[in-house]
């Protein structure tokens, strides 16, 4: 397939009080044209830093890309000058952020901000830019564009603001849209609208989308493939359905199990992962997940397993076979039926 993005061994570090901390530590994955990939992780997993690295925005917040290549359409973004990056940012790659209020300028109208983006990327006149802004605003599902364009950000609700952000991001007709927790600040009913909008954009424009989320449910609905990150490392890359059918990494499994399901048994204890996420300056040696992992052995505490292919999936764990054995045993006991969350015996 046609690859739009190839990331190889990306290492991004931040200058902390006690030296450098590696927020992203040797991450490799790629993204096909027209594909939606979700990076799922908890806070401190490095999912946002990965996207900020692709946009080369880490440099503005004291971070540096220490190693690795980020090939976008074959060109290494890590080697680009700031000047060159500025032309790529917001034109070929656009990004939308979690908090649509802080990302918009409060003293300019919506129309001004969208036309500014259009004028920056296209050689058109002001009138034409305004016409295109109207079109964009209509496309992202805002009714009465003419009136809306004259409004200021504070006059719009959270969902509307996020639509405006998406409109600005689309002004340049990007090939890749990076959405960093685009619906986290929104209510579920509004979240549903925005996700629907992203799906339609992908369908109609064959745009590649990299969606960053902590919400497994959002990933399940949106992604073709899911990348599970933990403490700066990729734990697993799988097609969405495969992941939900049978996670390969104990962390993926723990994450899936700890979310109460809408069809699960109520009131029973949820499977939870013991302990908490390590801080970046105190990541454990060996496998990052080992202190919390029910499968961990001495080898895990000593040596980080590499991300290795397993069929068309990838997983970084020494004990995939043991996990799969346990799972097939459990399915046998249950007669291979659908497993219900909450009744799993495995204790985390």
């Amino acid at each position, binding site marked *: 397939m046609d690859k739009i993005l190839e990331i190889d061994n990306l290492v991004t570090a931040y200058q902390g009080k006690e030296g450098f901390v590696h927020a992203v530590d040797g991450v490799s994955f790629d993204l096909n044209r027209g594909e939606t990939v979700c990076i799922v992780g908890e806070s401190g997993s490095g999912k946002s830093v990965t996207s900020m690295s692709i946009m080369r925005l880490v440099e503005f917040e004291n971070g540096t890309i220490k190693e690795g290549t980020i090939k976008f359409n074959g060109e290494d973004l890590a080697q680009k000058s700031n000047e060159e990056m500025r032309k790529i940012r917001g034109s070929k790659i656009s990004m939308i952020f979690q908090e649509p209020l802080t990302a918009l300028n409060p003293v300019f109208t919506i129309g001004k901000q969208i036309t500014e983006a259009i004028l920056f990327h296209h050689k058109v006149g002001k009138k034409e830019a305004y016409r295109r802004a109207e079109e964009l605003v209509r496309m992202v599902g805002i009714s009465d564009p003419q009136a809306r364009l004259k409004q200021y950000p504070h006059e719009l609700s959270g969902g509307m603001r996020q639509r405006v952000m998406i409109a600005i991001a689309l002004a340049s007709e990007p090939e890749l849209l990076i959405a960093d927790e685009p619906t986290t600040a929104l*209510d579920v009913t509004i979240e*549903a609208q925005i996700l629907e909008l992203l799906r339609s954009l992908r369908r109609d424009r064959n745009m590649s989308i990299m969606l960053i989320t902590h919400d497994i*449910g959002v990933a399940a609905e949106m992604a073709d493939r899911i990348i599970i990150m933990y403490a700066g490392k990729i734990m697993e890359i799988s097609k969405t359905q495969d992941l939900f059918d049978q996670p390969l990494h104990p962390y993926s499994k723990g994450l899936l199990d*700890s979310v*109460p399901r809408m069809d699960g048994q109520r009131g029973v204890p949820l499977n939870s992962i013991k302990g908490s*996420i390590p801080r970046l300056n105190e990541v454990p040696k060996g496998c990052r997940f080992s202190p919390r992992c029910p499968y961990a052995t001495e080898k895990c505490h000593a040596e980080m397993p590499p991300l290795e292919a397993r069929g068309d999936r990838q997983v970084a764990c020494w004990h995939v076979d043991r996990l799969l054995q346990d799972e097939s045993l459990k399915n046998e006991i249950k007669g291979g039926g659908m497993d219900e969350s909450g009744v799993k015996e495995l204790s985390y």
Partner: protein
Amino acid sequence: MNQELKNSPTEQSEPLLKIENLKKYFPIKGGGYFKGNKKVVKAVDGVSFEIYRGETLGLVGESGCGKSTLGRNILRLQEPTEGRVFFKENDILAYRSHEMRKLRRQMQIIYQDPFSSLNPRFTVGEIIGEMFDIHGVAKGAEKEKKVKEMIELVGLDPSRYHSYPHEFSGGQRQRVGIARALALNPEFVVADEPVSALDVSVQSQVINLLMKLKEELGLTMLFIAHGLNVVRHISDRVGVMYLGRIVELSETDNIFDYPAHPYTAALLSTVPEADPRLKKERIVLKGEVPSPANSQAAAISEPDVL
């Protein structure tokens, strides 16, 4: 078919709390300088329900629907504009402040944000111990013993007695918040989005803890949250709020399997399901939740919603 409910808490026990026509209006600032200001936001607009002894009542709704305001007004952390709240058949809105303070031992709250709800200058021992001081329950060595028992009860190491909040992770801090709320052995607890600020893998730990404590201590809980899957998991009954009103309140299974109100149905259909096989038809609501300030728009008529 599902009208005859088995094991419903309503049949088993009497109400611990009874809320009658509770209203909380906030005046809107601005407007005429001399004319006075009659405009209000109807954050809670005439809510009546009962909470039964030993049950967990879930309260869901989108931001701005009034669910947190309702929780605070029930505890009189804010004074309701109108209505009545009966705790064990006593109208607590008529209580004077010293009576209310006594009652607070029996009614507590767990807050959403474990980062801002704990005083950073106090040790955990002091944060929890303060509860005993305020209510004059225990002093000195006895207090310390009781505090350590609480720390242990919520699954933390009692040796962390002298630690400060910043030394704990988010999940651990929320445990401290829970220990503080439960220190005086209250009968009723309002849990206001207790897991929303936590990471997914830590959320389930705290949910499990709350369920365990509820069982062990026989708590009655008002569980306010916007995460429908969490509310479904933990609640015996669920109330759905929209624009200051409860539009539907029923047994949990009823609400989720047979939503009666179109808003409930729409809300449920939008939950991203953590399994791609369970994709369902969404009812994507058009538009936004109207502001409670424009309360002409507040009435939900079915064609509007769907």
